[in-house]
């Protein structure tokens, strides 16, 4: 790991008392690539993501975002990082316009940049006509799309997403994939955690399979098929994570 220009985890470990949630995980999402983190429930995916975004402190190991150490340079790392949690936090009382103004202010965007980027992103996710609607009036899918906008507003160089496809209709799902491809093509490093293996097959350049806090394997989808036999990613996943 010499460059650390994307999303980098080096020996990341997290222990809660006697429970080892994550055991010395080392992986990277290079700029311009989409890396999927998959694993059974309780494998440690969300823990790994929280360590990378600085919500948790690691027991051991380091996390880097575009060359900035997450613990030692938190503000610099967060400036270039966009995070989409599994349950996005939005202020129900604010309108979409006010939400974007608030987020833009937090990231130091000037008014003109905010307006241009905000309008472009809202058009992309088909929310431009709801600019003055309150967040409380939006459906679940609309809130998910708004969350994407808030994560991309400051044009992050690294994007981490926790279960971004959960509960989305096919149109929004397609939109999400399109956004991710475009961002990756523009050089953003993307790390996402998901259970939707069909989407991973279509989208991810590399797949990290996590089980019981340990990395089982890291490879491209084609590489996994070559190494573990032909079949769907789901078959390979079940085979590799089956502990019975």
């Amino acid at each position: 790991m010499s460059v650390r220009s994307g999303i980098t985890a080096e020996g990341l470990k997290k222990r809660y008392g006697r429970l080892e949630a994550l055991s010395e995980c080392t992986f990277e999402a290079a700029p311009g690539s989409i890396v999927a983190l998959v694993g059974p429930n309780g494998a440690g995916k969300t823990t790994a993501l929280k360590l990378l975004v600085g919500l948790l402190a690691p027991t051991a190991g380091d996390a880097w975002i575009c060359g900035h150490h997450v613990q030692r340079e938190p503000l610099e790392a967060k400036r270039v990082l966009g995070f989409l949690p599994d349950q996005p936090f939005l202020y129900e009382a604010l309108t979409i316009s006010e939400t974007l103004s608030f987020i833009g202010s937090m990231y130091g965007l000037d008014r003109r940049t905010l307006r241009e980027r905000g309008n472009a992103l809202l058009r992309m996710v088909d929310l431009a006509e709801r600019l003055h609607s309150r967040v409380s009036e939006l459906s679940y899918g609309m809130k998910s799309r708004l969350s994407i906008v808030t994560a991309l507003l400051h044009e992050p160089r690294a994007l981490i997403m926790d279960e971004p496809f959960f509960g989305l209709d096919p149109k929004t799902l397609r939109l999400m994939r399109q956004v991710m491809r475009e961002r990756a093509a523009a050089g953003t490093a993307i790390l996402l955690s998901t259970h939707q293996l069909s989407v991973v097959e279509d989208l991810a350049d590399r797949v990290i399979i996590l089980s019981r806090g340990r990395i089982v394997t890291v490879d491209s989808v084609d590489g996994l098929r070559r190494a573990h036999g032909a079949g769907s990613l789901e078959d390979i996943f079940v085979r590799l994570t089956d502990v019975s």
Partner: protein
Amino acid sequence: MRIALAGLRMLGGAPVKLAVLLVMWTGLFGGMYALAHHGIRFLNEQAGFGPFLLSRLWYLFLFVIMLMLAISQLASAFSTLVRAQETRAWMLMPVSARDLCRVKWMESSVYSSWAVLGVLLPVCLAYLHVLGKPAWLAAWMVLALGLPLLSIVTAVSTLALFLWLRFASRIVVRKEMILVWLLVAGIGLFWLLGEQQAQQQEDAWFLAMQALLPRMRLAMSMWLPSSWMATALDAIVNGREREAILYTALLWTTAGVVWRVLDHVAAGWLMPLLRRHAEPVVDGRDRGIKFRKFRERWWSQGAFRAALAKDLLLLARDPMQWSQAALFFGLLGAYFANIHRLGSFSGDPSWRVGIAALNFACTLLVLGALAVRFVFPQLSMESRSLWLYRLAPGGVRRLVGAKLALYGAASIIIIEGLLYISALRLGIPEGIRMWLAGVGGMTALSIVGLAVGMGGWRIQPRAENSAQVVSSSDGAMVLVIMIAYVSAVVFAMVLTWQGIQDRLPDLVIFSTTALLLVSVFVGWMPVLRGLHTLHSLES
């Protein structure tokens, strides 16, 4: 600021809620002013020691305010800064620890201080009016003296919270135990005052003063910012302007220093503390065993019993509900049990019945407030599982019935118990006592019916927490209806007593019957409407 403005905008769009808030605040402010004016004038008119005692009482008053604010800020800062989901969201953004601490400290200070300012302003106005000073001085007292005092206390409290989380976070004090201790302390205080009164045959307020005065030295310590404010206050009303300005400057300077200390501590400690607190609590205990044994018991079989058992479990596992109820009703019980010893009692039955009516009204108001806060939002919180009840035969009726049974039974037991203690201590005539017992049970059921029924009739399926439901226009409306109903009950009680005094049985029958009809309407109509709504709700 944006979020606060958005909140105010939403309030403006809810005229009922706004009206209720304005009325309540006006009443509170006016009541505080009248009470303070009466007390301050009484003391000021005592020849010799009155004005001296009055100026010294400010030290004690502000000392108590300072203590209350410190405790309030501890809880407010913990929930606003440490536990709030918003804090997690801000931790993901390039927001420095200092900025996060400043914003959250200001927010938590507003939550913990608004009531203090609400108490301070009418008391200041009353004080100035009694002394014949201009009213604008109250604004100076609150802004120039009160604000820095609040800032110092809230900042020091927040620092204390950081110290606790840093060094003593393993010591977990359960919230409900704090309320139990408060209750025990309150009961102990009432009992002590009662015992002292019995021994010395003096009024409770005099005994309290005798005990407090020697201990005022602590409250008058010049190390305390509350003492600086009290000294500045005394200086300004007695024409010592220079001294007042000096103490004002001292308050503001100290506030500035404490803010900077908080800033620096936050810069170093806040993020690691928040990360530590974000870690999930890993508890390996198997909680299922107790529930399985619980379910095996005979009375948990059957749909109604299952719904009742479920509500009992939820109540037992929600310390907020039963601990607050225990605190308020416990303090009321302690007060009623000692009421005959706390003051001069008139032998006139009308006076005693009047006190009993006030006690009854107070108990009903507490019950009503708790019902609105905890019972009213329950059906909204269960709306996501409503489909389950609607699929089960008679499921919705059992859901509502279980809540009525549980909270109705608990309310009747509490109300009847408190009324009995009050009537016994006051020596209320037997006839009135029986009337109170009957009316008490009926009104308890009506209040519970109102809360449960309105909870179903005005269900809010999209609400994410009970506070959202209670703070809505519907919550305000239910509270208004509750207060109006309690007023009607008290009015009926007064009419009944009048009828008994004047030997007018028709008046007694009329007032009782009218109350019965109103109670049935208030209690059961919402239940019927609620059932109808729950059955026809399109989820």
